[in-house]
């Protein structure tokens, strides 16, 4: 048990150091991607993005002004509000189309008025972190196995709702945040390890439960290997009734020829995005092709260039060196976030800081892995960089909350929370 020392409250502003270059990078990349037809001037997309940033900055300022702690008192109602919105989306197909429009086979947005569309799952990420931190702050029962039931329930409900949209990418964020926050709060490592093992054993169940197109998307991580595809194309050695090894994985409701063509045309169909994004990343080389000049931007060879795959455009334009700077920015955000967590001794502030910096870090990691073919292709945006209001809003709101954690003077007389070193 140590006494905290007075720490300067301005350190939270250091977070803006990586955030500002990332946002600017996003703006100029969007300009490169969408500004092909015009000569000079900002395009409509860029203007929109700047508006998003300004609005989000305003929201961030308000969040700093209110302070995370006062917001924390509202964390349960906020969480429930977001849950209601998600339930609304889950029943979206019975609601009017103007309220919950179906876009690319999933319902993720709720339309409020003619201009504003919000994505409840983006808000849910923050509401969830606040609620979980609020739940964990004064307890220690999660150090028992039974005590873990409540936090897991708190996580699985929004996860299930978001999965039903379906939005696999956002779902993938929740579990790392939960584990990181629990671990930081002092849950026992062996308990978490047991749960992770159990989760791994449940993976086959998960595999059986998802749709075949989602399976193919997950399988893309390994199918990008030419050698493996060639191997699967050959008939199996011992099972004589199968035309190819690939056929073994065929879902029962799929035609043999259709399934075969999924593999044969993988590079132009299911794997098309991945192949293109790898080509874009790879062709950047060490120093990149320069702003606007690369062919992927010129001929729109990449899908979702200003959104999910914006990192591919960045790495094509500025090469390995540019990419390294982007990664360093995220590393800086996570380390500064964690550093802020250690500076306060308010248990709620600590968990919020850990949760929010993990959220940004993991989200960036998932997006980057997807772009380079290390992870499945999901609709996770790159925080601060990708185009989109909801994403920008939730990212800058996280930063605002982090700054607000740093601004709150530590309660010097209090015990440092989550120190269970002496206990069994």
């Amino acid at each position, binding site marked *: 048990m140590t006494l905290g020392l007075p720490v300067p409250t301005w350190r939270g502003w250091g977070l803006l150091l990586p955030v500002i270059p990332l946002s600017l990078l996003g703006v100029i990349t969007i300009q490169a991607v969408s500004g092909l037809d015009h000569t000079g001037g900002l395009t409509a997309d860029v203007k929109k993005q700047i508006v998003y940033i300004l609005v989000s900055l305003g929201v961030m300022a308000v969040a700093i002004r209110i302070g995370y702690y006062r917001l924390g008192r509202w964390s349960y109602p906020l969480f429930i509000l977001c849950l209601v919105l998600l339930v609304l989306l889950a029943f979206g197909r019975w609601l009017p189309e103007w309220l919950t429009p179906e876009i690319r086979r999933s319902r993720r947005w709720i339309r409020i008025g003619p201009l504003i569309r919000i994505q409840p799952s983006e808000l849910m990420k923050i509401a969830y972190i606040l609620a979980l931190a609020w739940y964990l702050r004064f307890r220690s029962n999660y150090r028992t196995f039974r005590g873990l039931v409540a936090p897991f329930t708190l996580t699985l409900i929004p996860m299930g709702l978001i999965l039903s949209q379906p939005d696999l990418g956002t779902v993938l964020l929740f579990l790392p945040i939960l584990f990181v926050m629990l*671990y930081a709060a002092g849950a026992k490592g062996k308990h978490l390890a047991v749960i992770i093992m159990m989760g791994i054993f449940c993976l086959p169940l998960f595999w059986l439960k998802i749709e075949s197109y989602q399976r193919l998307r997950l399988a893309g991580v390994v199918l990008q290997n030419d050698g493996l595809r060639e191997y699967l194309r050959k008939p199996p050695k011992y099972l004589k009734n199968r035309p190819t090894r690939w056929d073994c994985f065929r879902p029962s409701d799929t035609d043999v020829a259709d399934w075969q063509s999924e593999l044969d045309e993988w590079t132009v169909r299911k794997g098309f995005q991945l192949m293109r994004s790898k*080509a874009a990343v*790879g062709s950047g080389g060490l120093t990149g092709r320069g702003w606007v000049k690369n062919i992927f931007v010129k*001929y729109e060879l990449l899908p979702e260039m200003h959104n999910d795959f914006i990192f591919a455009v960045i790495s094509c334009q500025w090469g*390995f060196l540019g990419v390294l700077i982007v990664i360093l920015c995220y590393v800086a955000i996570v380390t500064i976030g964690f550093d802020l967590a250690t500076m306060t001794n308010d248990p709620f502030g600590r968990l919020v800081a850990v949760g929010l910096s993990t959220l940004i870090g993991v989200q960036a990691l998932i997006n980057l892995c997807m772009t380079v*073919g290390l992870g499945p292709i999901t609709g996770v945006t790159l925080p601060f960089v990708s185009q989109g209001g909801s994403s920008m809003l939730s990212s800058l709101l996280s930063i605002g909350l982090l700054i607000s954690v740093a601004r709150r003077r530590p309660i010097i007389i209090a015990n440092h929370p989550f120190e269970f070193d002496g206990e069994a």
Partner: protein
Amino acid sequence: MFERRLKILLIILAVPTLVLIFRLVQLQIIDGHIYQAHAEQLLYQPPRFFPFVRGAITDCKGIRLAYDAPAWEICVDYGVLVEDEDYLDKLEENWPDSQELIEEKIKESWQVIAELTNISKAALKLRCDRIVNRIRRWKEVVSERHGREIKIAEERVNLSHAVVEGLNQEQMAKARECLAVYPWVEVLPSYVRKYSGGEAVGHLPGKLGEVSRDDIDKDSNADDPLACYTLGDLRGESGIEALGEHWLRGRRGLEYFDKEGRPICELADKEGRPICGAVEPQAGQTFRLTIDLELQQQIYERLMQTVEDNSPASGGTVTGGSAVLLDIPTRQILALVSCPSFDPDATKEEWQIIQQDKVHCPHKFRAVREHYPPGSTVKPMILASALDEGRVRPNERITCHKYLFPAFQDRWRCFGYHYEVDPITAIQKSCNIFFYNVGERMRVPRLASWLSQFGLGRPSGIGLIEGGFVPVEGSRGNARQIAIGQWDFRVTPLQAANMIATVASGEYRPVTIWADDPKPRTANRLSISQQYWRIVREGMYKVVNEPGGTAFGRERADFDDHPVYVLLGKTGSAEAPPHEQAHAWFVGYLAERSHYLDDANHSDMNVALALIIEYGGHGGEVAAPVAGDMVRTIMAHRQGGNEKSMAAGGRQ
């Protein structure tokens, strides 16, 4: 503990970050060149081909009989034809604000096309199905050839296929205006084949048809990507279009650039030289015929007049006729007339009506495809060969009492009592009894070998599909019948014309209809000596020019008083059981009066004529007057032509 745990967490998070960085090093630095090459491939654009102009078919003076006229066609993207979902989604992005579904927009565009072209929507649907089926079939063929499923170029969703063809300028302007809002419909320039020769040339130009799999397999240009047949190409299916296919066919144009505008050199021509970037389309060459359109029209009109006057509808028996004119020195076909005929530019509906006429059968190409028993027209040839073989002596006389065997009066008859008949009179009066004897002496195999020397029973050299048949075995009775041109013995009017040209010149030569025919057509001089030819020609002279000849007289050929030229000929009345009436034949040629017994292959005026009037009756009574008129036409035409060409600097 909290700080320690955060450090552990940072280390855990650092692991995937390091993996990510390593992956980036691998992608961008180690394997960078591979992905750069891959990115280059993304710039690839498939080649665009442009249609060529098919060569024209002209008559000997350069008047066009068939040509490609500019036209426009309405093309629709393949993605819309097969209703490819992804493609429709992409199209839908053109109307971001519209609540209307893309399916309805497409329906609307079909409606507009149907209204513009007056083709029903069902018919349009049928056309689309045909295009899609054709492409699917072709895909199967290609896949079969490669042993695995191949994605062919025609399957590209954004490639458009012609649904409506042959729009004129006005329709094109209207279509462009009305269809501009639908990005999947294009109005593109193309060509449409026009046939301007009229009924007189009827069957001659033939037809174009879509290439079959067989054509593609046997294509001699298969290794030239710009000249080879591809799916949906048109090729000559019949007539001159088929005969001159290689000559008429041009070479497609090409635009093959990547997205950056750099030429792609993946294609290679026959010699293996790469074809890069842009290639202008090459028009096909003009196919010049030896036919003279003016002469052909005059001959056709004269023959048509007789056919119409004696058709079953006007109380006669004639169902059709044919006339062939040959230039004897060169064996070029000057006119190739089949009667009745049709307009070669007929539409499909008109063509169906033409095919329904089962009495006159206008679709039959009588001059080349149809064969008839030659009747007495073969007698000069039989006589010449028998004289050469020594089976008949030049001064031999055979008695004709109308019947070969008085006991069997219904068979082996002659037209009259000719009494003592020498070879010349036998020709002049067309005595059957004389030739029964000749045939019996020659026997079928000898006769067949001689007939073949005169070009009967084998291709004439024109290059089109021909009829005609000569038996090679048979009894004595058969031999007798062959000698008077009956039994299973068939010739086409073209073969008959060449036969008489052979008699006129003493040498056989394949005929041609192509003015620039590069094939050597060497003359084959027959072994028959000049004195025998003289006997035969004397007989043919007397047929037209002396009393007692089957074509002599004002009511018959009426061509015995020209001061410079003389017509030698032979009539024929070929029995065609079960029909009561015989086919009326006349074959003959023009020679100079001063030396009409010599070989007639020197002058322009040496023209051979074969004329048949189906079920016309007696050759002398029916065919000879028509032939006389035709010969006068020929003379007027050739003399006029000579004067014109003399004025223009003489004949080449």
